[in-house]
Structure formats: C-alpha cells, structure tokens
C-alpha cells in the first residue's frame, strides 16, 4: 500500500519533468535502411577469417618450402 503511494507520488513528480511520448508513429519505411545493414553485414569479413589468413601468410613466409605442398593439396 505504501509502495503504491510512493509510486504514485513519484509518478506525478516525474510526469511534470518527463511527459509520456505522444508521437509514436513511424514516419518512413525503414526497409531500405534494413537492406543496407544486411548488405554491410554480409560483405564484412569476420575477424577470425583475417586471423586465419595472417597465420597462413606467416607460415608461408617462414617456411616457403610449404608452398608447393599447399598448392598440391589445393
């Protein structure tokens, strides 16, 4: 009961400083923005792919003899 009264009092106080949002209508279609985000995320290379490429480059730099073996297996 006391909680309810406290909430009510705080609610009144808050509402004088922060009013409820009246305009909640979306004014434009967000699908084009969504498509852009999908495209960006699809074309982004994950960090672990970069890490793998870096490790492979380092191995090939340190052991150039491995290049023919790698090409054979590809």
């Amino acid at each position: 009961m006391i909680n309810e009264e406290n909430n009510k009092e705080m609610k009144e106080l808050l509402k004088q400083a922060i009013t409820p949002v009246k305009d909640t209508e979306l004014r434009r279609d967000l699908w084009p923005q969504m498509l852009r985000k999908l495209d960006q995320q699809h074309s982004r290379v994950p960090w672990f792919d970069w890490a793998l490429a870096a490790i492979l480059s380092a191995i090939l730099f340190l052991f150039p003899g491995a290049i023919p073996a790698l090409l054979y297996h590809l």
Partner: protein
Amino acid sequence: MELLERFAAGDLEAFETLFRQHQKEVYAWIVRIVRDSGIAEDLTVETFWRIYRARQRFDPAAGNFRAWARRIATNAALDHLRHARRETELPEDLPCVASEDSAVRGETRERIRQAFRELPAKYRLVATLALIEEEPYNSIADAAGISAALVKVRVFRAVRMLRKKLNSFGVEVAAK
C-alpha cells in the same frame, strides 16, 4: 510453406513481409523507451537485424513473432540505455508542463531529469515504462523477459533511488 516457416528457413522475402508488418509496432515500443525518434529508428533496424540473425532459433509452430520481436526490441533498447547513459541527455524538445503555477519549475525539472537519466539502465527501463508510460507490469515483464514480481521490485528500487538522488540535489521528496 507458411510465412513464419519461410522466415525461419532464411527466406528474405518472408523477412521483408514480417519487417513491413511489424516495423511500426517495434518502433512505437522502442521510442517510448529511448524517447528519441532517430535513435528509435536505428534501434528498430538493429532489432530486426538481431531477429534475422536469430531466425533459426525461432520456432514457427510454437512461436509468437510479435512477442518475440518485442522482447528483442526491449533488449536492443536496454543495450542502448546501458551504453548511452553517461553520454546522452534526455531530448530537450520533450514537451514539459511549464505553467506558472506548476509546483515543479525549470531547475527542479532539470534535476528530476538528471536523477532519472542517472538511474542504472535496467531500472530506467522499467521506471520509464511503468511510471511515465503507465504500461502494465505484466506487459513490461513479457517484454523484458522477467516476472511481473521482479518488475514491481525494480520499480520500487528505482523510486527509492530517485528519491535519494533528488534529496541529494535538494529536491524534497518525502518518503511515506
């Protein structure tokens, strides 16, 4: 195949249909939490991006897409409140009651807003929805993925924190 099944299988057209059906509702929910139309638009897109990524976890047979979307939207808004708490202010163009005989005047209003934006994100979320937007506890609980009892506890704690903060700012709020 039904729309939700096609969506869960990764069909982009099905996703577009769902996006167009639900974007207004998701936006309307988020803007009530973050109180800024530009941020709410970005978070609506972020919400649907999360929905698209999680499509394989959605069960079309048992699932309620609307409720699922609202929960993801609430999490996206909560993440925003967590990251933006210190940097952003409540939008200045929010309409305020500003009559001469108002008990709460300019400076006091600013202190109330400051105390409010200093609330931890999870308390600010429930306080915004319960105390300002007057959303029922059950609805907040469903959206936040917590029990109605926990919503009540968080509202109680938010009120206590606000009272303490306001008293420290010199705004007298009597405890009952």
